[in-house]
């Protein structure tokens, strides 16, 4: 799985800490998400996409 969280986060000038606080997770979870090493729950994916003002489809790319 690949994500564009870092890209969208940079557009909104948000740090990993700030994004983590906005979606109620720990900073490490954002780090793992950005590296594609953690599959988030649907709720977290939705919250992150909402916070970064995009859709889940744009944010998460699954390898076929």
């Amino acid at each position, binding site marked *: 799985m690949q994500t564009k969280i870092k890209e969208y986060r940079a557009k909104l000038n948000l740090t990993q800490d700030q994004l*983590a606080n906005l979606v109620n*997770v*720990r900073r*490490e979870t954002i780090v793992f998400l950005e590296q594609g090493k953690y599959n988030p729950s649907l709720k977290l994916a939705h919250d992150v996409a909402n916070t970064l003002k995009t859709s889940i489809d744009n944010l998460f790319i699954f390898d076929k």
Partner: protein
Amino acid sequence: MTLKKYQQIKLVIIVIISIIFSQAIIYQNYLIPLITLIISSLGLIWLRRQVKEVVADERDYSNAGKSASLAIQIYSWITVVAMFVLYSFKDLNPSYEPIAMTLAYSTCLLMVIYSFIYKFQNKIKFTPSKNKFLFIIVVLSIIFGVFTLRLFSGEDNWVCQNGQWVKHGAPSFDAPKSICK
């Protein structure tokens, strides 16, 4: 309070508890560790509420679930093997039998608790009959608790009286070979 500060204090408290426990075992005082455990648990709950950051999130809970499952499997295998080894050597030393039994029952208890919690988390907590399930669990726990107390109460054991080992109840093993003082 920051999460880092909370974790540091938690570590210090755990170290203090360990020291108190080890000293209590040496001096055979069981009241002090109990009081320490209650006070430190309440203290940790209070401290956790002071932390404004997220202490644990879904990734932590997911990892905790996987770790718990693996830990239960490893513990069960170790105790089952240890139990069979100790039980097969019970003729060499009668004290091996109660140890083997303790291991066997602790494994059974762990499995039972795990099964109930899993069933509750998996299905029952979403149904209206969850209170009925919890009531059954409480009743079963009381029955199991009474049974365990009876089993480990020392009713059927060897007691040291006037320099001699005397039967108390009907112990299933021979008198200890150690000197009775």
